[in-house]
């Protein structure tokens, strides 16, 4: 963080030319950046050629499909719209489930923070639930919600809920009393306290929870689809596996990796924004 604005330390006529210094330091920075990018590109090319060489020669192509076969399958799925259709389904399940899970987690966490007594009474049960591998609930959700996207949304919501809930609860419980008292003396309602104190104060905590929850949300959606569904990337995976289509599995896994990377980039960006809300003193 920069300090309060103050006049420049070096006035005109000073012996050191800061502007020249700044310009002199720039090329080395860009050079370094370029080098890193170049190394990455070289690494990818090496891996691809090694892969192409190995596939069909050292290892049968129906075990490890060659990059060429993978690319052809990928292009086929992209041009026919199949990939986009299934990607959209998985994405929708993940986003809807995450939104529902996060909202419920924040609402429950904040509410419980109001009543330490109730929180203490409930904690062992919540912990017991927390101990269940949530994926194990998938068959139950299929029975309750069918094989459509609803059962996957429910699974994602449950996974996200538990990871965000504890953080929201701890964040809300750790709000300094003095903040709440100050607000109450200004005539704040309970809703005002939630919105203007607890939420911004817990934003950092909630975000850490989301950081862990979102990658698991993707896993939950895909596993849900693999178990039983008629659409989504998990379905695509399961279908390709059933047909011994190794290239298809590679494409689906590759797309999942890409989604994961993009999601992480988004989260990093969001973190920069929410970091502003953290206590800096």
């Amino acid at each position: 963080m920069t300090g309060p604005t103050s006049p420049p330390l070096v006035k005109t006529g000073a012996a050191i030319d800061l502007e020249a210094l700044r310009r002199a330091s720039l090329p080395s920075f860009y050079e370094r950046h370029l080098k890193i990018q170049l190394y990455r590109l070289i690494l990818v090319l090496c891996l691809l050629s090694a892969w192409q060489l190995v596939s069909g020669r050292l290892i049968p192509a129906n075990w490890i499909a060659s990059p060429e076969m993978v690319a052809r399958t990928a292009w086929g799925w992209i041009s026919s719209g199949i990939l986009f259709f299934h990607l959209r389904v998985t994405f929708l399940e993940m986003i809807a489930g995450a939104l529902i899970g996060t909202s419920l987690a924040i609402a429950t966490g904040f509410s419980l923070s109001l009543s330490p007594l109730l929180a203490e009474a409930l904690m062992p049960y919540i912990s017991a639930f927390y101990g269940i591998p949530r994926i194990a609930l998938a068959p139950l959700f299929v029975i309750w919600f069918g094989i459509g996207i609803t059962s996957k949304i429910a699974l994602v919501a449950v996974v996200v809920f538990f990871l965000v809930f504890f953080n929201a609860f701890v964040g809300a419980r750790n709000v300094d009393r003095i903040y709440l008292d100050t607000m109450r003396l200004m005539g704040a309602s309970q809703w005002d306290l939630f919105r203007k104190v607890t939420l911004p104060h817990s934003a950092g905590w909630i975000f850490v929870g989301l950081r862990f929850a979102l990658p698991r949300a993707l896993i939950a959606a895909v596993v849900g689809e693999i178990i039983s569904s008629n659409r989504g990337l998990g379905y695509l995976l399961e279908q390709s596996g059933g047909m011994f289509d190794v290239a298809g599995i590679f494409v689906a896994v590759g797309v999942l990796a890409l989604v994961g990377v993009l999601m992480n980039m988004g989260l990093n960006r969001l973190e920069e924004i929410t970091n502003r809300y953290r206590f800096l003193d």
Partner: protein
Amino acid sequence: MKPPQAIQVRDVYKWFISKNSEVLALEDVSLDIGVGDFVSFVGPSGCGKSTLLNMIAGLQQVTAGTIHYHGREVEGVNTRVGYITQHDSIFPWRTVESNIELALELKKVPKPDRAARVKEMIKLVGLEGFEKSYPSQLSGGMRKRVGLARTLIYNPEALLLDEPFGALDAQLTLTLQDELLRIWEMTRTTMVFVTHDLGEAIALSNKVVVFTGRPGRIKLIREIDIPRPRDVFRIRFSQRFGDLYEELWASLKEEVGKGEEL
């Protein structure tokens, strides 16, 4: 005719339960504070002076006795007072401006009116140029100013201050005391000021209330008849200040340490 009373404390007792034992924090405290008065509470730590302040604010409840505020008994949070503590409770996620406008935001005052009031307050406490800064970018003294402006913006009838300048260096404390006096002389807001610094209490107040060590009882109420306007930077060198300090310190000295023993 008696001047109107802002705060009337009658036969107040306060017990705490702490670690399975009952502690008597305040015993039989009665006190009147007039509208526009400037009263300080001094006493050893643990004497319950902050507790009394919290009870006037309605943040804690009396165990026995009553506290009336402008004629009405304090029940629940007293939203007609402003409250400033040593730990400045300004929000780190809000800029100076938006910290100061908080009270008006809660009262749903329209935006343009808010902006005008905020500007006024920023000028009053001398924070021009820092409207968009975050608290982490401010010095301790500036944060105090934000806290003061944020409280004054909703025109509380009384300001309750709990060692507001406790953690600041000596020069800064003097400067802020001077500003507080200037603001008080302009607004004539009733001031209740808790401090452990006897000199500060004498320099600022019309009346100093000395509390005994725990359980806190009122030992002495002394009118401070030093004429106003006062100069907090020089007041300490005056004869009258010296005499009052001697007299009150003699009384306070016996109590210091008592509260700690328990």
